[in-house]
């Protein structure tokens, strides 16, 4: 999508259409990590890592909203907006969103102290979240403030199936009342707002989604159970992965790329098929990454390594890949 700021002023209807398109395109429910979560396929450790890291994000939301309030010269807007701070911090009598997030993290088996200490948060998450605060802080986006509220809780996030328990009773951590409809929603309607909105709103939304995705990309790298990063250790580098018995790729060139396994099939997206093909029982993990870096010259080498290692770790957790 072309950055909105490079374009001429848009007609309101067109602006609205473009803004609405950003969400479905970039919303984090499309992220592989969230998809695994919805399918109930995360391990307990991965779910914990997600809850822990996301807590850091939850914890800064009132700070972000306070920044926004502090930039507005419109008292009606400020009055409406400060409800969000209360939503998150609670009002003293009723717990707010942050408290509920802690409860959710506890439901995954973490303890409160662990969560609130903010120890163990991944560096990538830390920077992404701080980046979000910076974005809110930058005056250029002042009039686009409502846009920042696209931060999205609805549906997806809370409807996760926490690791299926024996009874297949889905544990459904829900935050309860959370969303009261906000008066200034999403800013997708440039309702009477200043002209700049038309220029900035789209860029801000894109920036926001990029930040959210980098936060997820970071937490996806957490191996189950350890709560630590899984950069390829020296030992890992020399391991030789191959498909486990009874797991194979479907015929190439079909309508979809699938990894056939005893329980069914896993859908492979983007370069995933190429990565799995390289797990031929001959190449080392380091060799696979090098080969991918040679092939995909337009992507950052570090990103390639992260993505490939994360994919292979997931497949190994799933029992689909083994070390020869």
């Amino acid at each position, binding site marked *: 999508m072309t950055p909105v700021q490079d374009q001429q002023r848009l007609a309101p209807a067109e602006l609205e259409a473009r803004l609405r398109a950003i969400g479905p395109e970039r919303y984090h429910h499309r992220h592989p990590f969230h998809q695994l979560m919805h399918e109930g396929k995360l391990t307990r450790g991965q779910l914990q890592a997600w809850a822990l890291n996301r807590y850091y994000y939850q914890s800064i939301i009132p700070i972000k909203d306070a920044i926004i309030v502090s930039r507005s010269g419109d008292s009606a807007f400020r009055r409406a907006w400060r409800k969000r701070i209360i939503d998150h911090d609670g009002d003293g009598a009723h717990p707010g969103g942050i408290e509920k997030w802690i409860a959710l993290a506890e439901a995954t088996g973490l303890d409160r102290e662990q969560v609130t200490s903010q120890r163990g948060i991944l560096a990538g998450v830390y920077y992404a979240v701080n980046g979000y605060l910076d974005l809110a802080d930058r005056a250029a986006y002042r009039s686009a403030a409502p846009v920042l509220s696209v931060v999205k809780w609805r549906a997806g996030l809370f409807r996760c199936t926490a690791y299926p328990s024996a009874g297949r009773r889905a544990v459904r951590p829900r935050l309860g009342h959370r969303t009261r409809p906000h008066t200034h929603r999403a800013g997708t309607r440039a309702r009477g707002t200043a002209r700049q909105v038309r220029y900035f709103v789209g860029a801000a939304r894109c920036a926001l989604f990029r930040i959210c995705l980098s936060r997820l990309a970071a937490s996806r790298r957490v191996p189950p159970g350890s709560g630590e990063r899984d950069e390829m250790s020296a030992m890992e580098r020399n391991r030789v992965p191959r498909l486990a018995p*009874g797991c194979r790729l479907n015929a190439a060139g079909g309508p979809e790329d699938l990894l056939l396994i005893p329980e069914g*099939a896993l859908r492979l997206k983007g370069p995933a098929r190429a990565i799995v093909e390289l797990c031929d029982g001959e190449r080392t993990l380091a060799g696979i990454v090098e080969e991918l870096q040679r092939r995909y010259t337009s992507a950052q080498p570090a990103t390639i390594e992260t993505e490939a290692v994360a994919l292979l770790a997931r497949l190994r957790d799933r*029992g689909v890949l083994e070390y020869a």
Partner: protein
Amino acid sequence: MKYTPRALIAELTHRCPLHCVYCSNPLEMQRRSEELCTADWLSIFQQAGEMGILQLHLTGGEPLSRADLTELVRAGREAQLYSNLITSGVGLDERRMDELIGAGLEHIQLSFQDSEEVPANEFAGTRSHALKLRIAGMIRERRVAFTVNMVVHRRNLDRLKEMIDFAEQTGAQRLEIANVQYYGWAFRNREALLPTRQQLEHSIEVVEAARERLKGKLRIDFVFPDYYAKYPKPCMNGWGHQQMLIDPAGRVLPCHAAMVIPGLEFPNARKRSLHWIWEDSPAFNRFRDESWMPEPCRSCDRRTRDFGGCRCQAFLLAGDAAATDPVCTLAPTHAAVEEILQRVNGGAERNWVYRIDPS
């Protein structure tokens, strides 16, 4: 909305050397003389591959009772299907196993009736446990995916921990612990098989502890006894949504129990193309969308997740295949299930009958 079939369950035969008291096969079974021939199955697999079906489950009865099994596996592989053999193991030896794997068999699911020989043989109505143990050893030595299946019920659920330890010893990668689903012979014997609530609760704890302990080593699937559930299972992931089953005589069904439903005519693969049956046959379309749904399903949020439960169970328990699955606690007919559970939890062991071999 268009549905893509993903799995074909091929019930190659109803013949079986075992007589499991929990067998889900229908009471009225097809005889050998009515079975599809090799060429019929070859054509079916070919059509299945063309329709985009991915998984082929070779089951029965005992699929090894078919002398042409290797040929069928090869045909499945040629049609790009992933082939699973669901078996009691009776009829396997090293040579046949190598032939099957050589022909493209990718996964073997071997059923055990218990971890202990005496009760295992009692539930199977046959002395087969010792042989199964040897078969497990043979599978482990080969590069083929290996799942152990154990059907659990009132008479063995208290030994679940031992059964899991046993499965771990077999060297399988997966363990499927399936509470009896009450169809066919199992429905006939259900009062003798249903576990008590206490047994069930304990078994859930056992499974959870085992999952934790065996993480990364043995995957454990647990099939819940839906009579005790709050909401029904999403049976077959929806009627005619993903799977089709072909019985030994070639009748094509949305699931293995659907023959019990009166008034539905299931087309035969000898006469019709799979494509037509899947897309256009009245039987596959009968419960496909939501238009058949009565209240409370019609206005229930869960209807897109459980599809109102199992049609066969609705017929078996409520006498109406178009009723809400009576195991659902919201169903008007739920009392029928409660009543059975009360009897079961009140004590009173019952006798069972053994599944017969249609020969």
